[in-house]
């Protein structure tokens, strides 16, 4: 029979290989032997054969096994594929997690927090530094401006000649220029200040942006400043001022007293270059003009590199410096990727610092969860040993633990998305209000991918320890619940985790303390005068009327006088720069007679109306203030120099009475020396800002000035009376940027506030996580050693000793953690140096108090379980197993 079958299978072409033949031969041999044994036992030949076949079972199974196993298929134990086993692990893992609800919840919350804030910060960094700009082919866009290291903070506009040179660069396929303009738009109830820009026709084409309505500027439509006839408006302005009127094209706008026709509306959200709402065409009055007033945007040819652009620009800069030193000395042109022009190194540093901090918080959460899982593992040892005895390999068991960890992490990550949303919202609330329109911080697809990736990595990270432990456990010789061997090893793991947690919290807390202190320092930093009851606002005189210097002077003089006459006002002044916010104008100066124009250097020029120092309530160090007569004189020749400038001009002292030269020809006699005031924002310490030169307003006569008003009470209450005064003097001029000086200080330090608040939150999270971690480990260790403690108490140990031992154990761990943490903090805070204001990154007081504080917190966390340990009833303990 069987031989026939063999023939049949061979005929049907199934399995003619050598292995199949061997397997077949083996089967036949076995059946023959069994048949023989049966016959010898007395069965008839047919019965023997039948019985043999029956006891053999299904030979097809053997043939199949032979083919599969010997002919190449790897010996899968269950015959199931890798995917199947992973799914098995997942199903099992979910069951296990669901059973231990409290642990899962605690772990899940920690993870949700850690992953959530990481995702939010990723969105922040990505949105600001990496998201693709909303222009066509944004990687090819460059920003071109001037750089002069001797002047102010270095960067400045370029000249029209520079623009021409840029246009000739081979590697660029297009260059357009722009300059910022602030406009007073009238037509509504009150004149409104609008931020705008004048752009050369072709700018928006360069960016690849099309209007949603109407058209862009045509070549040749560029007009002399003040003679523009057409304008483009933003979507926001269209809706705000014109109510989204369908018939917007062709309507007119009153700008600085002139009417312009609206020819187009730009797309929603477009406010190029940062927060501008209005665009006018720009052309040079005089192409050979030497005034520096524009900056440029350029597009590189496909495949070109920035270096290919920078090189010819450098050549031009060298040439220009040689040929026209009066306008180009120390100036170079620089080209950089568009985004870099708006996000400086300091901001980048802040962002990456935050990212590092949230990374630490996540590590802390991981350590906590690893601890929880290890504690859990103690209860699962029996399960692991049995599974191992049933044949599960160590790798399989470890993989099970890892799978559970990743599931937990993914769950936490999902919840973390909610946290991320909230955190992004909070970040948005604290963000500086003047962020560029192309910065979008949202939790979008990129953030989701990041959250997914981080969740998996996190799961693998904190799952490694329990996985290792599981592999070890399965080989454990001891099955008693309080088996000592594996527990000891596990205890070491958990202790190390606690040390790590304490260390991480120390780092985060110290960083937080430094950030908060830095922010507080900024709030109390001294600008050089008392600004608590001061109101400030800006006015930028617009309109032909104010072309005349005398008319401008008249406006500001009258305004200052009338404001000062208001009830509640002590003094008022108009000045060219608001202290602690602006720098002044930059101009070259040198001491007359003893110096010459080649040795001149940049100083900060601040023109003001006569009551400037009186309003600030600042006493001069030497000499006298300007008289009224000197202030009225258009071509006055007196100046008051700041302390540092005086020393720089005349190191031998005695500046009063001497003369300095501004530019190359204007001479001024020094009549007074003033103390240095804070110009530019706190924390942006520039040498140039400290060289201060005060001039009477009539000499400087700028259009854009600021009023500083000192009140006797709440400066906020003066806002409306002052506005009324200005309205009465000239209703077409709108004051803007109206803030009390304390409000202004808060606004200019908003980034530090954001950082400080964020870090404070991280520090708090760190402390909570670390304290929970310490508590958990000590509590568990006590529970594990209940028997041992019971024995000791029964043998005469006092509860007090037990308590002390537990607490000391905790303190030892915490101390090691604190030491590591302090060392780590020294390294970490090194990266904060540029951001901190007024404090040392390794301030010993902060380091010391955080170290001691965490030690105390850890000790306190250990007290509760220690008390429980001390209260162990020996008989109960010995009985429980």
């Amino acid at each position, binding site marked *: 029979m069987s031989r026939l079958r063999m023939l049949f299978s061979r005929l049907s072409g199934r399995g003619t290989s050598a292995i199949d033949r061997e397997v077949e031969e083996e089967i036949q041999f076995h059946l023959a032997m069994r048949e023989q044994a049966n016959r010898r036992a007395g069965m008839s030949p047919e019965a023997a054969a039948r019985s043999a076949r029956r006891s053999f079972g299904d030979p097809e199974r053997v043939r199949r096994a032979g083919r599969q196993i010997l002919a190449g298929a*790897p010996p899968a134990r269950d015959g199931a594929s890798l995917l199947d086993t992973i799914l098995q692990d997942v199903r099992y893992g979910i069951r296990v997690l669901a059973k231990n609800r409290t642990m899962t919840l605690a772990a899940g919350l920690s993870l949700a927090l850690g992953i959530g804030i990481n995702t939010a910060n990723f969105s922040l960094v990505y949105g600001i530094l990496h998201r693709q700009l909303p222009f066509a082919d944004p990687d090819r866009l460059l920003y071109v401006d001037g750089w002069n290291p001797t002047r102010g903070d270095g960067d400045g506009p370029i000249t029209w000649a520079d623009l021409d040179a840029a246009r000739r660069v081979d590697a660029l396929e297009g260059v357009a220029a722009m300059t910022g303009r602030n406009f007073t738009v009238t037509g509504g109830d009150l004149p409104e200040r609008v931020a705008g820009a004048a752009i050369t026709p072709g700018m928006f084409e360069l960016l690849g942006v099309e209007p949603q309505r109407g058209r862009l500027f045509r070549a040749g439509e560029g007009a002399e400043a003040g003679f523009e006839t057409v304008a483009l408006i933003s979507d926001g302005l269209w809706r705000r001022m014109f109510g989204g009127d369908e018939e917007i094209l062709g309507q007119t706008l009153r700008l600085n007293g002139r009417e312009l026709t609206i020819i187009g509306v730009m797309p929603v959200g477009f406010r190029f270059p940062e927060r501008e709402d209005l665009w006018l065409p720009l052309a040079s009055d005089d192409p050979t003009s030497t005034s520096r007033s524009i900056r440029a945007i350029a597009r590189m040819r496909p495949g070109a590199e920035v270096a290919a652009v920078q090189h010819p620009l450098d050549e031009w800069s060298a040439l220009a410096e040689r040929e026209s030193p009066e306008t180009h000395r120390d100036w170079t042109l620089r080209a950089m990727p568009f985004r870099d022009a708006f996000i400086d190194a300091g901001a980048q540093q802040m962002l990456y610092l935050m990212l590092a901090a949230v990374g630490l918080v996540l590590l802390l959460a991981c350590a906590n969860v690893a601890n929880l899982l290890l504690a859990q593992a103690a209860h699962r040892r029996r399960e692991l040993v049995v599974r191992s005895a*049933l044949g599960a390999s160590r790798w399989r068991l470890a993989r099970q633990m890892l799978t559970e960890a990743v599931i937990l992490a993914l769950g936490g990550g999902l919840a973390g998305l909610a946290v991320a949303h909230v955190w992004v919202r909070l970040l948005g609330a604290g963000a500086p209000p003047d962020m560029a329109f192309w910065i979008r911080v949202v939790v979008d697809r990129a953030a989701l991918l990041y959250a997914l990736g981080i969740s998996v990595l996190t799961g693998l990270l904190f799952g490694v320890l329990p996985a290792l432990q599981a592999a070890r456990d399965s080989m454990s010789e001891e099955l008693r619940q309080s088996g000592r061997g594996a527990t000891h090893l596990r205890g070491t793991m958990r202790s190390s985790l606690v040390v790590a947690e304490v260390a991480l919290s120390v780092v985060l807390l110290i960083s937080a303390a430094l950030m908060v202190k830095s922010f507080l320092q900024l709030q109390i930093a001294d600008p050089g005068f008392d600004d608590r009851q001061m109101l400030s606002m800006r006015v930028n005189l617009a309109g032909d009327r104010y072309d005349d210097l005398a008319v401008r002077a008249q406006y500001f003089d009258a305004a200052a006088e009338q404001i000062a006459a208001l009830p509640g006002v002590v003094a008022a002044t108009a000045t060219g720069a608001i202290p602690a916010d602006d720098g002044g104008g930059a101009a070259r100066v040198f001491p007359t007679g003893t110096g010459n124009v080649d040795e001149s250097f940049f100083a900060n020029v601040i023109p003001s109306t006569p009551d400037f120092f009186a309003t600030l309530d600042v006493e001069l160090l030497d000499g006298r203030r300007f008289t009224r007569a000197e202030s009225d004189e258009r071509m006055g020749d007196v100046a008051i120099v700041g302390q540092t400038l005086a020393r720089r001009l005349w190191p031998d002292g005695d500046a009063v009475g001497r003369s300095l030269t501004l530019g190359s020809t204007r001479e001024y006699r020094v009549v007074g020396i003033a103390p240095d005031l804070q110009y530019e924002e706190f924390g942006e310490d520039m040498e140039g800002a400290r060289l201060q030169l005060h001039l009477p307003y009539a000499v400087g006569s700028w259009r854009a000035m600021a009023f500083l008003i000192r009140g006797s009470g709440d400066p906020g209450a003066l806002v409306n009376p002052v506005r009324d005064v200005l309205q009465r003097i000239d209703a077409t001029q709108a004051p803007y940027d109206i803030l009390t000086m304390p409000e202004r200080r808060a606004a200019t330090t908003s980034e530090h506030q954001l950082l400080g608040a964020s870090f404070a939150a991280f520090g708090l999270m760190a402390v909570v996580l670390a304290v929970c971690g310490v508590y958990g480990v000590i509590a568990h260790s006590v529970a594990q050693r209940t028997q041992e403690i019971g024995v000791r108490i029964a043998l005469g140990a006092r509860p007090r000793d037990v308590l002390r031992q537990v607490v000391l154990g905790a303190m030892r761990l915490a101390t090691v953690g604190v030491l590591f943490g302090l060392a780590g903090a020294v390294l970490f805070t090194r990266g904060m140096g540029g951001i901190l204001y007024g404090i040392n990154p390794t301030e010993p007081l902060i380091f010391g108090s955080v170290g001691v504080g965490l030690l105390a917190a850890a000790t306190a966390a250990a007290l509760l379980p220690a008390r429980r340990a001390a209260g162990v009833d020996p008989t109960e303990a010995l009985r429980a197993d």
Partner: protein
Amino acid sequence: MTEPTSERGDLLRGALEMLILRTLEAEPLHGYAVTENIRTTSGEVLEIEEGSMYPALYRMQKRGWIEAEWGRSDNNRRAKFYRLTDEGRRQLEQAGARWARFSEAVGRVMEPA
């Protein structure tokens, strides 16, 4: 506790392999002899489906725990003989230890309270 079906399979397979290894420890045998040996040594308690011997043998052969060689049986028929390798000996030791632990665990669970 764990997925019953696959684990039960694991249990049986693991036990069977252990028995086969033990049987081959003394001397090389062919498949039929191994079956008979286990049957008689266990006091005829363990009745294993005879055919299921062979997949287990093939698996262990593939893993390198046993080696196979064609030879002549007692009654001069061609048969495939299996022999323990060093690795096989090692596996036998470990399996024995695990089994001992397992049976202890079961015993403790089943112990009268």
